[in-house]
């Protein structure tokens, strides 16, 4: 059964220095409040997994939390580069980070395989791409029935996955709705999981085939109102496209970034 914890306590308990952490949310429901808590608690040497490391990972990388990033598309969607990611990769600031990159299809399948308890995912992927030459985790197998050459990647099985969702009921069952990405897979694939939610309700009001993650498949549920901003929560609030655009200027420069982090994360209250 999921335990109801404060976001501070959930992060303190489950995110250890050196851990492999997946914070997921495919543009929608990105767990920003939780990410900021990780920064505030100065977690270090994390291996950060995420299909689309957008500005939350830019912030974590710039704040020095990351040792390695495993991803398939690292940009500020519709705006441009992640300047902190680039600064780390290109110039080693605040320190060098390793990267391991995949395609979306491979990572999505790797999350699926992780949730399915398998060691590998098989897909018709990477045909003609040079990604396998720079990622030794991409292998190829032969189908025993047809002889076709198919790509294989290791499944994703994080130490802890963190996702944001609309709401939990009082037993800790969680409803995720709208663009559901790989969030359910991330939670099921991980040893531990933290789900932040907009609110706790008596009744999830879910339809029969809704994406509901049962309480007994989650480690901790923490309330984080507006916990996805500047990303959004379907049915609660919209995406702050304006902030995504503003981020470009903030992140471009180490000083403006550092000041932003001081003002908006280190000095901010949890969930503020």
């Amino acid at each position: 059964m999921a335990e109801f914890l404060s976001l501070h306590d959930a992060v303190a308990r489950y995110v250890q220095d050196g851990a492999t952490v997946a914070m997921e949310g495919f543009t929608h429901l990105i767990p920003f409040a939780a990410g900021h808590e990780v920064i505030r608690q100065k977690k270090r040497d994390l291996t950060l997994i995420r299909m689309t490391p957008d500005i939350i990972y830019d912030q974590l990388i710039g704040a020095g939390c990351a040792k390695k990033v495993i991803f398939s598309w690292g940009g500020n969607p519709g705006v441009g580069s992640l300047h902190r990611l680039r600064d780390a990769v290109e110039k080693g600031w605040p320190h060098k980070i390793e990267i391991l990159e995949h395609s979306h299809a491979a990572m999505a399948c790797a999350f699926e395989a992780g949730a399915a308890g398998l060691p590998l995912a098989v897909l018709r992927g990477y045909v003609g791409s040079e990604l396998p030459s720079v990622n030794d985790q991409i292998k190829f197998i032969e189908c025993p029935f047809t002889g076709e050459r198919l790509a294989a990647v290791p499944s994703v099985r994080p130490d802890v996955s963190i996702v944001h969702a609309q709401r939990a009921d009082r037993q800790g069952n969680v409803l995720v709705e709208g663009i559901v990405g790989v969030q359910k897979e991330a939670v099921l694939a991980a040893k531990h999981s933290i789900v932040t939610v907009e609110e706790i309700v008596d009744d999830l009001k879910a339809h029969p085939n809704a994406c509901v993650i049962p309480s007994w498949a989650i480690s901790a549920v923490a309330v984080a109102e507006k916990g996805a901003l500047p990303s959004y929560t379907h049915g609660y609030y919209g995406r702050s496209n304006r902030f995504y655009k503003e981020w470009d200027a903030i992140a471009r420069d180490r000083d403006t970034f550092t000041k932003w982090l001081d003002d908006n994360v280190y000095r901010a209250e949890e969930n503020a």
Partner: protein
Amino acid sequence: MSLEYTSSEMMSVTAARALENGTTCFVGIGLPSEAANLARLTHAPDVVLIYESGTLQTKPDILPLSIGDGELCESALTTVAVPEMFRYWLQGGKVNVGFLGTAQIDRFANLNTTLIGDYKAPKVRLPGGGGAPEIATNAGEVFITLKHSKRAFVKDVDFVTTLGFGRDGKGRDNVPNIGKGPTRVITDLCVMKPDPDTKELVVVSLHPGVSREDVMEATGWEVRFAAQLESTPEPSEKELEILRELKARTERAHAGE
């Protein structure tokens, strides 16, 4: 007719026209999304747009800034999980056209969105592959749209993120279960198609007012022109009106929180 329009508008309208009504199209963000939605709002009301965020058959009223804006989900027939999107809908062979942008493209239509320079010590780190590597191989065919420049159109890409026809033009030969690959590249100057034999991109149509020299100057290899070089039809008044309204609606929406 002497309509006023920009080369960007010419590119979007030409790219939109490439999409036939009823086509199922896996849409990349940015220029492809603009073109695909313009197609839907003009000649192709029944084009089916799929975004990798899981939104199936979506009809956004404004262009999404990201691949997963709320607008895409709200106007979709349904929204599926991302693993399902890549497994059932793309790899499962349900997509007729993959519509992609890119940072770099070479003469064999290979795409690079990974980096400029050397992989271990990149000069410019780009966002990475995203959905493109498998869109380009699992969709029936691929349309590519981007602005023409010597930086973008290079003889050989620094890195093949996404297969066009390989570094020798033969990258799809004898590969089972693979799509046709890039069948056209639409830029702000021209339309290019792969030579049926060598797969090298050849200019087949010049946009109005664009010269061969303009294209040659913006292309990083000795670009060839088709024997029967055509002139791309101009945008219609209606197309321009709809495109401009779409962009104005989008800008208003994105300026708000």
